[in-house]
């Protein structure tokens, strides 16, 4: 056992904090979404310049070869600062390409992903294939030198602002569910694709994507044909090091506490309120603990069994619990939306997170399925 962070990690953390503070200032100064997008773009470029986007990638893949804990602390600090970076493209697609792409595919996509010029939406879910993803029905049929895609995807977030789609489609309809699926990359401007917006109560737009005889070249296939399920399942370990970072919720806790200390001196002196905050603090420490256990296993080049699922469950349920409790403590102020500047505490972060909190309770595998995974893979209970 060793619970000390190495000096080089701590030095890296310091560097990250300075970096995040600087860009947070820029973010606050931005006047609209376009301005904020510009800052994000700058963050991305600067991160690539410093080698951070690939900091834990193996050196043979052009990475920094650092310990997964570098990745861990980086995600933690960016999440605490509320600055998104890289996202799914760098975090999931790039590693999948590294593992399964041909040299040509790597050369075609990786530089753009790292520059931020190529961004991906993920085409997995379908109306009848959500938690039961293997039931997906979108078809890809080989026709000469091309694949022809027909079908529909849903919950394709960022499809309207991405350059490419990472698509799971059925290539062998006769095979059993998990088999017969293949992965493809499509440019979002391929003819035959229609993107329809779906607006959600969290304020975030997502999409449906429809495919009507969409033709893409043969080399759009990533990895082995009919083995796409395993391409997706085998993402690189270092990306799993921080699935549900403590950062954002910790920041929400800290900021709400700060508000109470400054604006509600009577309430913060109340033992009832203090105990509620203490409960949340303990819950955050549990989240931190699960994250570190998960990361530590990966850093030891072992494979977490149930630890990732535990972290995901705890994080998503705490996201709801913490937002809701903070709102309750703030009373009517807690219910204000962030578009009310001045009156709304902590920019309405609690209210906004509350509205978005259901997503992670079912997204990325419902918490019910996650608990099944813990029971089966972690505890060895019979199916």
């Amino acid at each position, binding site marked *: 056992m060793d619970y000390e962070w190495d000096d080089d990690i701590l030095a890296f953390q310091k560097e990250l904090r300075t970096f995040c503070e600087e860009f947070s200032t820029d973010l606050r100064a931005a006047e609209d979404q376009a301005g904020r997008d510009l800052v994000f773009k700058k963050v991305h470029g600067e991160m690539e310049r410093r080698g951070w986007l690939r900091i834990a990638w193996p050196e043979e893949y052009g990475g920094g070869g650092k310990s997964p804990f570098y990745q861990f602390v980086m995600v933690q600090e960016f999440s605490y600062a509320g600055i998104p970076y890289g996202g799914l493209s760098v975090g999931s697609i790039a590693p999948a390409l590294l593992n399964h792409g041909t040299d040509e595919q790597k050369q075609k996509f990786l530089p753009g992903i790292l520059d931020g010029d190529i961004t991906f939406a993920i085409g997995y879910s379908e109306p009848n294939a959500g938690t039961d993803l293997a039931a997906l029905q979108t078809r890809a049929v080989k026709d000469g030198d091309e694949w022809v895609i027909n079908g529909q995807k849903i919950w394709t977030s960022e499809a309207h602002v991405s350059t490419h789609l990472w698509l799971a489609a059925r290539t062998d309809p006769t095979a059993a569910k998990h088999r017969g699926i293949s992965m493809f990359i499509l440019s979002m401007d391929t003819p035959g694709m229609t993107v329809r917006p779906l607006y959600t109560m969290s304020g975030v737009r997502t999409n449906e994507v429809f495919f009507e005889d969409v033709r893409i070249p043969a080399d759009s296939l990533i990895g082995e044909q009919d083995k796409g399920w395993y391409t997706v399942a085998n993402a690189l370990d270092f990306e799993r090091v921080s699935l549900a970072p403590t950062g954002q919720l910790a920041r929400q806790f800290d900021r709400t506490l700060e508000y109470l200390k400054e604006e509600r001196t009577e309430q913060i002196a109340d033992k009832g309120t203090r105990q509620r905050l203490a409960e949340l603090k303990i819950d955050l420490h549990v989240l931190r603990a699960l994250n570190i256990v998960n990361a530590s296993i990966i850093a030891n080049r072992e494979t977490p069994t149930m630890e990732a699922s535990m972290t995901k469950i705890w994080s998503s349920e705490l996201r709801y619990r913490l937002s809701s409790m903070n709102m309750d403590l703030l009373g009517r102020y807690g219910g204000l939306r962030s578009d009310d500047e001045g009156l709304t505490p902590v920019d309405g972060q609690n209210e906004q997170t509350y*509205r978005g909190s259901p997503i992670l309770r079912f997204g990325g595998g419902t918490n019910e399925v996650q608990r099944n995974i813990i029971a089966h893979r972690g505890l060895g209970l019979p199916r």
Partner: protein
Amino acid sequence: MDVSLSETQRLIQDSVKAFVESEIPFSRIREVESSGDMDRKLWKELAELGWLGLPLAEEHGGQAGGLADAGVLIEALTRRAVLVPIAESVVAAATLQRHAPTDVAADILPDLANGTSIAVPAVLEQEDSFKTWSIEVGADGTLTGKKYFVDYGGQATHHLVAARSDGEPGLYLVQAQTPAVTTSAVQNIGKVPQAIVTYEGAAATRVCGQDGYEFLVGLGRLLAAIQCVACSQQALDMTVDYVAMRVQFGQPIGTFQAVQHHCANMATHTLASRYLVFEALWRHDRGEADDTQIAVAKTQASRTATEVTMMAHQLHGGMGLVTEYDLHFFSLRGKQAALSWGSSEECLGLVSDTIEEPEQWL
């Protein structure tokens, strides 16, 4: 002791349900919501159907119903997520009927019953506290100051304002659609029209003292709690329908034990909350509900609304979050009601204030 609905209550429930289901499609709710205004057409219809006068005496054009009857009405309307100040109006009207001087009551209540006037409470100030507010009515009978979080404050014709005169707390009737009263809208999670109201020398008629104020706050709490119950029940019913139909892994997800148990818990909380709220409301009508009983009911109902509606989302998956689907109305209005008239934390504090007092458990 009989927890079942009376004939009248069942009639109210059924006819309001039939009315909103045939006349108020959810597309109408979306329209009204994005307008930022209340549903004025519906308000007129409710007046014409006589619902606005439900808890008012016949002499005022009402139907002489009880507060529990009004609760049944509000629940049925809330289950359609309509945007009308029905709860606020019942709070104000019932308080006026019981606590206002006869002439004041006779003057305004018929207009409230026929919908030409709308009265809403205006209690909270910047502190968001039902104990601390400070507007003083001057010697000239006018008041000046600000009230916060006034639901439908911008739509109402009258405000029932908590204020003091010579230090004596009380409620004051203020005409809202005059230059002395300005409102500024605030945005909340429930998307319910809500305002900060500024009074600058607004003419104020004293309605009642501390007693009436306490009646009003208790009723406000309980009608917010009814809305919590309504949102919980609606979310539960929608969830049961959804999981019975939604197929994954070759079977309806409602056959999975984990899903069934979530639903069972949602049903238990909703049923208990309904009982506690209606019992307290029924007793409040008879002047028998104390602050603790009301606070117990509001705490439980607020938590239920939060927990049940969010679990409904978990079980609905992505579909539940889409604004084209209707679940979000109930989760967002439910949380709004949970925070209104004392959040679960504030009400829990009230229960703890009197914790030494012995309880009747029968």
